[in-house]
C-alpha cells in the first residue's frame, strides 16, 4: 500500500491516488460501496449514485446505466411489458471464441442480448421501447439485436404506436461478420416503413453511440436527443487519430459538438428525460 502512495500516474486514465489520500483515514469504506467518478475522480457512495440515476452528484457526469435501471427511470410504474426476452445470440459463422464471449456477456449484463424491447407507458403515453445494453459486448449489433429492433418497429407500425429508443453501442459486431452489417440495412428499412406510415420515433443517444448504430437507426429518428457529454460518432476518436495521425480538437464526437453542428435536437440530462419524452409523445399523439 505504501508503495502505491508514491506511484506517479502514467497518464490521465490511470487514477491518481491523491484523491484517496484526502479522505479521513479512519473512514474505511469497502471499495464496492464506493465508485470513483470518471468525470471528477471523486469517490461517491454507490448508493447515492444509484439514487441519482447514475449521475455523479458532484460533477453531473452521466455514468453508464443498465437497461433495467433505465426502464425503471422512465417507465410509469409496472407499465413495461417485455417482448422477445428469450431471444439470444448464436454463432452463425463459427467465429473463434465467440460462444464464450456471448456467455460472458450474458453473465456480465444479465441480459440475453444487447437490446431489450417491449411496450411501455411514459407519463401515461403508450409507446414501443428499445433500450440498448452497454454491458453486453458494448451494445454491439448482432443479428438478434437487429431482429429485435426490426420487430419492434414492425409491431409499432401495425399498432400505430410511437417508438422511443435508447442507443448505446460500439457498432456492428464483427464476430457475426456481414450478417451483422446487414442489420443496419434491415433496421433502416423497418424505420423507413414505420416513418412512411406516419409513426413518431424519438431516439435518446447515450454514451457511447458509434459505428454502425450511428450510421443507421440512431440517426434516423424524428427527434434525436442525447445525454450530456455522450460520445456519438461514426468513427471513434482513437480510430481517427490513427487514420489521420493528428491530435483531435477537444469535444469532437461529444453530444455538445453534435448539437452545435446540427446533428441532434437537444441535450437532455437524465433527470429531465421522462418529462421531455412524455411531452414529445403527447405532441405527436394521434388519438
Amino acid at each position, binding site marked *: 500500500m505504501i508503495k502505491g502512495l508514491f506511484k506517479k500516474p502514467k497518464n490521465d486514465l490511470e487514477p491518481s491516488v491523491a484523491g484517496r489520500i484526502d479522505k479521513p483515514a479512519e473512514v474505511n469504506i469497502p471499495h464496492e460501496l464506493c465508485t470513483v467518478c470518471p468525470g471528477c475522480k471523486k469517490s461517491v457512495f454507490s448508493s447515492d449514485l444509484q439514487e441519482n440515476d447514475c449521475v455523479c452528484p458532484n460533477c453531473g457526469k452521466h455514468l453508464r446505466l443498465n437497461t433495467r435501471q433505465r426502464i425503471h427511470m422512465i417507465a410509469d410504474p409496472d407499465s413495461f411489458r417485455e417482448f422477445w426476452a428469450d431471444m439470444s445470440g448464436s454463432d452463425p*459463422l463459427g*467465429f*473463434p471464441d465467440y460462444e464464450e464471449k456471448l456467455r460472458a456477456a450474458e453473465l456480465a449484463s444479465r441480459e440475453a442480448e444487447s437490446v431489450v424491447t417491449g411496450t411501455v407507458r411514459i407519463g401515461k403515453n403508450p409507446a414501443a421501447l428499445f433500450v440498448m445494453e452497454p454491458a453486453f459486448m458494448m451494445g454491439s449489433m448482432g*443479428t*438478434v439485436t*437487429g*431482429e429485435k429492433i*426490426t420487430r419492434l418497429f414492425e409491431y409499432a407500425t401495425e399498432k400505430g404506436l410511437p417508438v422511443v429508443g435508447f442507443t448505446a453501442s460500439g457498432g*456492428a*459486431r*464483427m464476430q*457475426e*461478420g*456481414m*450478417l*451483422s*452489417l*446487414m*442489420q*443496419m*440495412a*434491415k433496421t*433502416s*428499412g*423497418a*424505420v*423507413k*416503413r414505420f*416513418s*412512411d406510415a406516419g409513426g413518431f420515433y424519438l431516439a435518446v443517444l447515450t454514451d457511447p453511440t458509434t*459505428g*454502425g448504430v*450511428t*450510421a*443507421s*437507426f*440512431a*440517426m*434516423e429518428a424524428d427527434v434525436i436527443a442525447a445525454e450530456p457529454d455522450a460520445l*456519438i*460518432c*461514426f*468513427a471513434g476518436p482513437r*480510430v*481517427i487519430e490513427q*487514420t*489521420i495521425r*493528428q491530435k*483531435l*480538437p477537444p469535444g*469532437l*464526437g461529444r453530444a455538445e*459538438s453534435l448539437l452545435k*453542428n446540427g*446533428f441532434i435536437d437537444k441535450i437532455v440530462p437524465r433527470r429531465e428525460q421522462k418529462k421531455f419524452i412524455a411531452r414529445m409523445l403527447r405532441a405527436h399523439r394521434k388519438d
Partner: protein
Amino acid sequence: MNAKDHVAAARAKDRPTAAKYIKGIFDEFTELHGDRCFGDDPAMVGGVARLGQSYVTVIAQEKGTTTRERAGRNFGSAHPEGYRKALRLMKQAEKFGRPVITFVDTAGAFCGIGAEERGQGQAIASNLMEMMMLRVPVLAIFIGEGGSGGALGIAVADQVWMLENAFYSVISPEGCASILWKDPARAAEAAECLKLTAEDLTDLSVAEQIISEHEGNFEKTFAFLKEAIGSFIAEKQQIPVEELLRERYDKFRKIQ
C-alpha cells in the same frame, strides 16, 4: 484461393477502378457533380449513363489510378458529401424513372475530423433508409473492396453482384485482428473467419451473383456485365413498384 488472396487481389494497384467499368459497360456517361449542401466529393462519382436504349443513373466509388489521382480521390474513401451526392442523384433517378447502378470499391467511409463534423453517420443512415424505398430498380456491383458501412451506404439494392475477387466485410481483416488478438499480423486468419469472399457471401444470401474476372481479361467481364445489367433492368422494370420494394425489404429482412 484463400480469403487473404482475394483481399490482396481486390486491393491490387493494377486492378481496374470504377472509371474503367463505366467506360467499358455504358455507351455514354455524363458526370454530375456536387451534393448541393457542402461540396463535391471526388471519391464518389455519379451521373447519367446510357445502356443501349435505356438511361440509368450510375454511382461509383472511385479510387483513382495514378498516385496523384488516388490522393485527390482520397483513395476512394468518401466524406459525408459523397454519400449526400449519391443520394441526391438517386432521388433524381427516382424522379425520372431511371434504374440505379452502383459500383462499390472502398476501404470504408472516411474517418476524419471533417467527416465526423459533417455527420458521416447521419449521411450513411439516410442513404440506407432512402435506398430501401427508392422506387426504381437498384443494382450494386462490388468490384474490389467492400468496406463496411462505407460500402453499404450505396449498396442497399435489389441485387448485389460481386466480382470473383471482390470482398465485403464488416471490418478490415487487419482491424479485426488488431482488436480481437491485438495482432494485425493475424489478418489472414481474420479474413478467413469474417466470411468476406464472394463465395461466402452468396452462401449467406448477402450477394446474389459472382461475376467472373476471366483471369484478368476485364474487357470480357465488361462485355458480360453490359448484357447482364441490360437483362437485370428489363426484368426488374416488369415488376410493379410496390412488389419491387417488398422484395427488396424482404431480401434484407430475412437475414437473421
